[in-house]
């Protein structure tokens, strides 16, 4: 009787722990006006970069001066929230970054020391999300008639793949104001967009999360990816590890030289052996440990970007 009670308790605890860890890491989504829209509407700045003129979008000015873009983003945000997937608001993210930056500048310890920030940290201080929803619209005019060409593109920030889309040109109108035409366009396209996004999530749950892995080497490291360990090249050893640990052995070796390797379409499981949700960093940490231990004994540094991009630099921490 006592033994039965213990068994039941163990089963209950294991079910509870599985439930606690059974949620996959949720990607963040953010709507960003496309470069084309920003440049066409004059929300861009030009600067000279090593002799060539570059144009970059000025998002802050776009949000401050264009109410149409705010209306469209607000409407899409609302409709996605109704579908249980609230989006990150880019305007707020930019404001938060500015406020954090001001606080960081003023912050000192009691001994007068500043907070640590490497040049890489400074570069990474931008509004970001795992999936970028790129928004573009153009107003077409034929005589007095106007119509809207609308384009929503969901892009995976790590693999650069377009994972969701909805695009089309609405009906022509003599009388409707631009905000009305835009609102109609959002209503017409949001279902198709979320349906293609759903297909992407279904694929993610069936075939694992797709990540990108870069392998680099420090200049002062004596070995390289062609160095042999137990008669096998290091590059091949890493490929074998990936083949054994990816979902259905799926990955592509895009580049492999003596100093670097690039693996794309690496399908990683959403959960580890303990049932905990994992991302690219937690997943590649196992490869990092594998290379650190004997017989390879290769110290390495793991650098991550969000849920889906990792760089492993071999030779030193």
């Amino acid at each position, binding site marked *: 009787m006592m033994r039965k009670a213990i068994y039941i308790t163990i089963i209950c605890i294991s079910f509870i722990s599985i439930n606690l860890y059974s*949620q*996959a*890491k*949720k*990607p963040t989504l953010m709507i960003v006006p496309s470069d084309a829209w920003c440049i066409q509407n004059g929300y861009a700045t030009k600067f000279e970069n090593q002799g060539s003129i570059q144009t970059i979008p000025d998002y802050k000015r776009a949000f401050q001066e264009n109410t149409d873009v705010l209306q469209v983003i607000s409407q899409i945000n609302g*409709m*996605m929230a*109704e*579908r*249980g*997937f609230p989006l990150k608001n880019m305007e707020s993210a930019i404001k938060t970054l500015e406020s954090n930056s001001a606080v960081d500048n003023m912050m000192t310890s009691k001994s007068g020391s500043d907070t640590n920030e490497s040049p890489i940290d400074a570069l990474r201080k931008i509004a970001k999300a795992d999936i970028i929803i790129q928004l573009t619209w153009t107003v077409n005019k034929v005589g007095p008639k106007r*119509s809207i060409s609308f384009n929503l593109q969901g892009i995976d920030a790590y693999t650069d793949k377009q994972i969701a889309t*909805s695009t*089309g*040109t*609405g*009906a*022509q109108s003599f009388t409707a104001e631009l905000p009305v035409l835009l609102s*109609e366009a959002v*209503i*017409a*396209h949001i*279902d*198709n967009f*979320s*349906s293609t*996004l*759903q297909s992407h*999530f*279904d694929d993610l*749950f069936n075939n694992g999360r797709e990540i990108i892995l870069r392998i680099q080497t420090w200049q002062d490291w004596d070995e390289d990816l062609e160095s042999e360990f137990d008669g096998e090249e290091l590059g091949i050893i890493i490929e074998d590890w990936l083949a054994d640990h990816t979902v259905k052995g799926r990955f592509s070796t895009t580049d492999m030289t003596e100093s670097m390797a690039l693996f794309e379409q690496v399908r990683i499981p959403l959960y580890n052996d303990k049932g905990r949700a994992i991302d690219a960093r937690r997943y590649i940490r196992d490869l990092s440990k594998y290379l650190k231990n004997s017989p390879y004994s290769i110290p390495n540094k793991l650098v991550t970007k969000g849920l889906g991009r990792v760089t492993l630099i071999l030779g030193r921490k």
Partner: protein
Amino acid sequence: MKHILKISLTFLFIFLIGTNVNAQRKKKLADKATKECKYDIECVNTGKKGSKLIKVWSYSKKKKYATSQAMKNAVHGILFKGFSGVGRSCTAFKPLITNQMTKREYDKFFDDFFKDGKYGGEYSKYVTAANDGNVAPGDVLKVDRKTYKIGIIVNVLTDLLRKRLEEEGIITGLSSGF
């Protein structure tokens, strides 16, 4: 006199039962047509937020059955058929239920969801007739000697329907699993 009254009442009784049985049979046939997707569905306009304004073309030997079945066909169409975009004011719509169902699952879902109740079945919560249910003169077509094709414009509350299916676990929502 009493004898004639008895015979008349018997005939009336048989006639009423016959009419009822005939109506039931026609209703079953109409339901069978819905179940087998024997209707056409096309987009009319973008519609309001969270809904689709569509025209449903139902086929029937009698006009009144095609009209009454249009609501069922509209909801069934949104669930299982979807529609292609027409012109520039309409975009294509994928059916809400895209995952494969076994025949048993489909029959059970259909029988429960499309069951006719006293105040309309479960499905009727998600559909309303546009134009007060009136049929435009050009939307009554005679396909052959016995069959009418009747087009009725209805408004289907797709967002509410999708939420209901998500709650039932029939389809997965965007945030499911995260």
